[in-house]
């Protein structure tokens, strides 16, 4: 408003400087009037436009309800957003898979119990695992070792996979966050990220990690396949691989490949939060705490402070005699 009044004032001043009776000046006056009118028209247009614009802003404001909701963003900030502006965001395809593989399965704390008294080194778990993860015969996510702790104690078979430590040395040393610990307890690998420095292999006291030194098995056949971190396939040259607790199977509500494949009831798998584990062979579900308590459950090298999520039941009253295992792997790879 004050712009218009200023303009009027200036125009008034202009009028006062000239006498209206002067004929010479009367022409000029007409011209001045014209200019004055033009000026007024201009002001009018500007005012109209301003009014229209502010009206538009007002309309836009009216669209929202003014009712704000407080939301938590992905990076953990609280923000207030108008309720009408909120749209549900659905992740699809690769995005979904990527965020799922980092976030894990909500509310779960996966745990495995391996009963050494039942293992006769049938190696069915190993085969199922290698099939699922596109591994060569000498590449193990799960390997059965023939153990003898001291010269005078009995030998036994010990299936050994990634212990999915709660204090994982491998995750600590990874320079690029390619291997990570999920809230549901699983340690995963993202082989799109891995730079192949192998520091994680050096750091792992359980020798649980393997490396794709050469082109992975049937690489040509799996080319172009979407990468799934929960299955870690397709395997990629120059990157790490290891046991994933079959995270893809757990998402479908199924037991891991090895657990399901065991013919001898060696494996129990379940959720620590529920205090329940299911035997992969008998499908019997038992209390985790009771199973560990009654059978003297223990962990591998707990003195290292790695806090494994795999428990072992000692190899007493073994169901099978110990036999030296024959190697099926080639002499040199």
């Amino acid at each position: 408003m004050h712009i218009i009044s200023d303009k009027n004032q200036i125009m008034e001043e202009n009028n006062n400087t000239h006498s209206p009776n002067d004929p010479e000046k009367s022409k000029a006056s007409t011209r001045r009037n014209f200019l004055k009118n033009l000026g007024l028209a201009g002001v009018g247009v500007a005012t109209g436009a301003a009014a229209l614009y502010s009206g538009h802003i007002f309309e836009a404001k009216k669209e929202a309800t003014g009712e704000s909701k407080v939301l938590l963003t992905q990076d953990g900030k609280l923000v207030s957003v108008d309720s009408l502006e909120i749209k549900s965001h659905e992740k699809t395809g690769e995005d979904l898979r990527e965020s799922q593989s980092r976030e894990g399965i909500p509310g779960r704390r996966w745990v495995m119990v391996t009963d050494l008294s039942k293992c006769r080194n049938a190696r069915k778990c190993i085969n199922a695992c290698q099939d699922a993860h596109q591994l060569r015969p000498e590449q193990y996510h799960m390997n059965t070792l023939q153990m003898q702790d001291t010269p005078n104690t009995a030998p036994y078979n010990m299936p050994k996979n990634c212990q999915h430590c709660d204090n994982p040395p491998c995750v600590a040393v990874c320079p690029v966050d390619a291997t990570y610990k999920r809230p549901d307890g699983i340690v995963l690998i993202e082989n799109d990220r891995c730079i192949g420095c192998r520091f994680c292999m050096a750091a792992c006291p359980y020798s649980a990690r393997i490396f794709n030194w050469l082109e992975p098995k049937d690489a040509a056949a799996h080319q172009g396949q979407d990468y799934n971190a929960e299955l870690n396939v397709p395997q990629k040259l120059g990157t790490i691989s290891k046991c994933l607790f079959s995270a893809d199977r757990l998402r479908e509500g199924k037991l891991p490949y090895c657990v399901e494949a065991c013919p001898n009831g060696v494996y129990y798998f379940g959720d620590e939060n529920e205090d329940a584990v299911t035997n992969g062979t008998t499908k019997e579900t038992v209390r985790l705490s009771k199973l560990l308590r009654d059978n003297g459950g223990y962990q591998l090298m707990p003195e290292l402070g790695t806090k494994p999520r795999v428990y072992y039941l000692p190899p007493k009253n073994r169901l099978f005699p110990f036999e030296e295992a024959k190697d099926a792997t080639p002499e040199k790879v």
Partner: protein
Amino acid sequence: MTMDDNNLTFDKITSDLTHHIRINKGFLIWMGVLTAALATCLYAYSLQLRTGLGVAGIRDYVTWGLYLSNFVFFVAASLIGMLVSAVLGLAGMKWITPITRIAETIAVAFAAVAGLVIVSDMGRPERLAYVFIYGRPQSPILWDVTVIITYFVLSLLLLYLPLIADMAIIHRKVDKLPSWLKVIYKSLSLNFTDNPAQNKVISRSIRILLILLVPAALSIHTVTSWLFAVTSRAGWDSTIFGPYFVSGAFVAGSAAVIIAMFFFRKNYRLENYLTESHFDKMGKVLATVSMVYLYFNINEYLVPGYKLQRADAIHLAELFTGKDALRFWLVQIGGLILPILLLLFGYFRKPLPILVISIAVLVAAWFKRYLIVIPTQEHPFLPIQHVPHNFMVYSPTLIESMITIAPFIMVLMIITLISKFFPVIPLHETAVEKGVEHIKFE
């Protein structure tokens, strides 16, 4: 002051220290041979890029092999810049003046190439940038990258700053140089005219660099040792790995400097500048750092050897009497104990005997890194079973050996280029120290 010193003029010093700066046949042949050798090794690397790290002998258990032990060796050798320039220099040792540039050249060459050595050990070298994009500060690799870059930059500056005055002298005083070379020297000299203000800035900057160099150098090798010491493996799980590696680095670096001194003295006729007394003093330095290293070696082997915890016992048995015993004892006796004993006698600190000793020490220093890195991995906590034989016992392949040799060729090339185009011995500093009449900068 010797007779020589009395007869020295500024022109004589300039000509003595710069007469080698010319492109001659010998230089071209030498660089030609190095280039051809490097090309062959790079071809080997191209095979690795195409086929994968599997062309090397490393496998799932011995996952760090020659490349990584070579990396440790390169970082170690680069540490000598700190010992000579910073430690001895800041302590006020005047005799190191003619050696400082040799030490800095070696430091720059090894530090620059160390970065490439570690890239050759990556399964996915094309993802190198991920270390900067996704870098996690809790990984010692990030610390290593940071301190190596820092140390390299500091060493490069420390090599360059004393060269400013030398460049100013050379482009004015030395004739018979190709004009393009003179242009380079002139621009590198940054219009240095030897006025007090410029000298003050330079000497102050050098002093700051020398002080910064000490923590940077300590960090690079300490952090490199932590790549091993942060794991719980027998042979690596040690709290003294930092000082153990640093003292070992000084041994390797001192030996490298003595070798370089010998060849520069002979090839560039620097007998009046790199005197027998310099070899004698460097011999005492080498003996001293070797004794410190021996002390850490005793700690590193005797303490676990006394307790013989299971994993340590297996590891030590393999070193002392097992598969690695020959290498181990050659390194410990031939590369450490014997050199210390010999260097106690003046005769063995003369140029030729100390050259032989230094070569033995340097070769042993390389094998020492091999012995630190590899045997530990052949004996993890859990047995190695159901895998091919070459997974259980590490043996380097030909391609791997060639890729391991490549960085040495690069270091030789860098040292050759720097020493060929710049005075090996600081020209300006030598003139100032000898108190000879000075060039007039117009």
